[in-house]
């Protein structure tokens, strides 16, 4: 087995009183990867990140990391700072505490990369939640961390801000390792190469997103065509390799087939024989949200 991991946990358990927040989590984060931790509220994501950051101790199990503690940077889901500090001072404080050898010019660069260069001199007391989240990110990246733990980094951002942050996370994944939790599954699907699905303190799946989706892909096609749809659907249902043909919209049919191969070979011909005026045919892609809902239901 390759030793390119950055974090490895073994049977991680955390209980609060009688409540078990983590129930034996064993995960492995590869170096240079962007690892997405997904799970419903209360799944244990924040607890897991807090343990990895060293802010909480596990009740049982172990955490091993190949990155020195001072090179692990953490951003909580709702960053808060001293309101009387300016944005520059917050990031500079992070730099001076964790990496004093990093030049001050990196502070400006971090603020610029997170879109806060214009408000560098402003006190953070008046910042919106989105701006605080960007500032949290700026103060984590300024020290050039080897492992970046981000708890819901896009939770308070507008679509444009989310795109910027996700692009930044992708770039950071090239120079270091990023582990981030999110409930925005499209974000995870967009930037992560590995995903861990957590539910009630248990890791239900860990691995490449593609593998997660491939395992659960259904042999189905979405067919967009001109009306009327009913005769076409009836003709398709008569085919032995078709399991079902349902209207999913005014001009869309969902055709579930015995196998993808059958569909690829037979569907176009069957549609032509039924006199269908076809606009588009595409295999139904499994998305993370559907898979996630199935797994955590």
């Amino acid at each position, binding site marked *: 087995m390759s030793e390119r991991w950055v974090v490895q946990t073994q049977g991680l358990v955390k209980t609060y009183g009688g409540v078990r927040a983590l129930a034996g989590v064993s995960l492995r984060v590869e170096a240079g990867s962007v690892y997405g931790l997904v799970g419903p509220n209360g799944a244990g994501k924040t607890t897991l990140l807090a343990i990895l950051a060293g802010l*909480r101790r596990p009740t049982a199990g172990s955490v091993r990391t190949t990155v020195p503690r001072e090179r692990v940077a953490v951003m*909580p889901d709702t960053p808060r700072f001293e309101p009387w*500090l300016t944005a520059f001072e917050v990031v500079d404080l992070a730099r001076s505490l964790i990496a004093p050898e990093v030049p001050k010019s990196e502070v400006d660069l971090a603020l610029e990369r997170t879109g806060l260069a214009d408000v560098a001199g402003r006190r953070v007391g008046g910042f919106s939640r989105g701006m605080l989240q960007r500032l949290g990110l700026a103060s984590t990246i300024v020290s050039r961390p080897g492992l970046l733990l981000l708890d819901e980094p896009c939770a308070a951002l507008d679509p444009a801000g989310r795109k910027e942050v996700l692009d930044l996370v992708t770039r950071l994944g090239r120079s270091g390792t990023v582990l981030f939790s999110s409930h925005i599954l499209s974000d995870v699907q967009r930037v992560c190469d590995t995903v861990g699905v957590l539910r009630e303190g248990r890791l239900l799946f860990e691995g490449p997103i593609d593998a997660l989706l491939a395992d659960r892909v259904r042999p189905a096609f979405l067919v967009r065509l001109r009306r009327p749809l009913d005769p076409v659907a009836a003709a398709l249902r008569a085919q032995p390799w078709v399991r079902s043909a349902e209207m999913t919209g005014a001009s869309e049919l969902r055709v579930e087939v015995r196998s993808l191969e059958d569909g690829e070979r037979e569907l176009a011909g069957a549609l032509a024989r039924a006199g269908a005026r076809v606009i588009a045919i595409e295999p139904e892609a499994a998305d993370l949200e559907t898979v996630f809902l199935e797994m955590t239901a």
Partner: protein
Amino acid sequence: MEWARLVRTRRWIGLLAPFILFGFTGPLVTRYQRELFRNLGGGIRVIVPPPSVGQAIDSYVKNVAQIGLLAVVAVAAWAVAIDARPEWAAFLRTRTNSVRRLLVPRCVVSAAAAGACFAAGLVCAWYETAVLIGRPPVGAMLAGACFGVVYLAFVVGVVTLWAGLTRSAVGVAALSLVTLVALPLLAVLPGVEPWLPSTLVGAVTSMTRGAPWTDYLRTAGVALASGVGLAWAGARLIERREL
């Protein structure tokens, strides 16, 4: 950063104001208390001794031992309760391996600011007393100021210990005040008083009345050592606490 905390949050005003206020009003009230009582009326005759230097300084000390102490405890509590806001605590604690690195400047600046305010108030009291009553001995005032500063460092130590035992800044301040108010009560136990840091509060008064400064050396040593010890224990407790 700790100086910035005091200045930008304007906490320095809240800290300095009671010391300056009582520095001027303490000797003033002492000087004119006979006239004040005379004008009370109602046929009551109050016998007041003539105002003295010791009385004037004592008036300042007694006032700041209450309101001034409250201000010092509040300022220190809000500085050293680093876990009061978990998100900010996470920011700080994941960026340094040592809580002491975070606490030492907070304790030092809080104690220094409190000591400076106490000394500033004492300068005001000295001036006002010199103008209205008579000139207090400078040596006694200087030594008294030093003992006062040592006591305030002990106060910051107590506050830091409570910051290790509880998270909220309000809780830290309240528990510290209860501790500091209760501490002098131990003086009823025989032989305990010279060891109690709270004895230092009255050192300046006693010395203006002629007590030798060496009387308070042992107490100052105890206050300093226990203040540092309490702060160290507080730091250890914070370090071991989960966020």
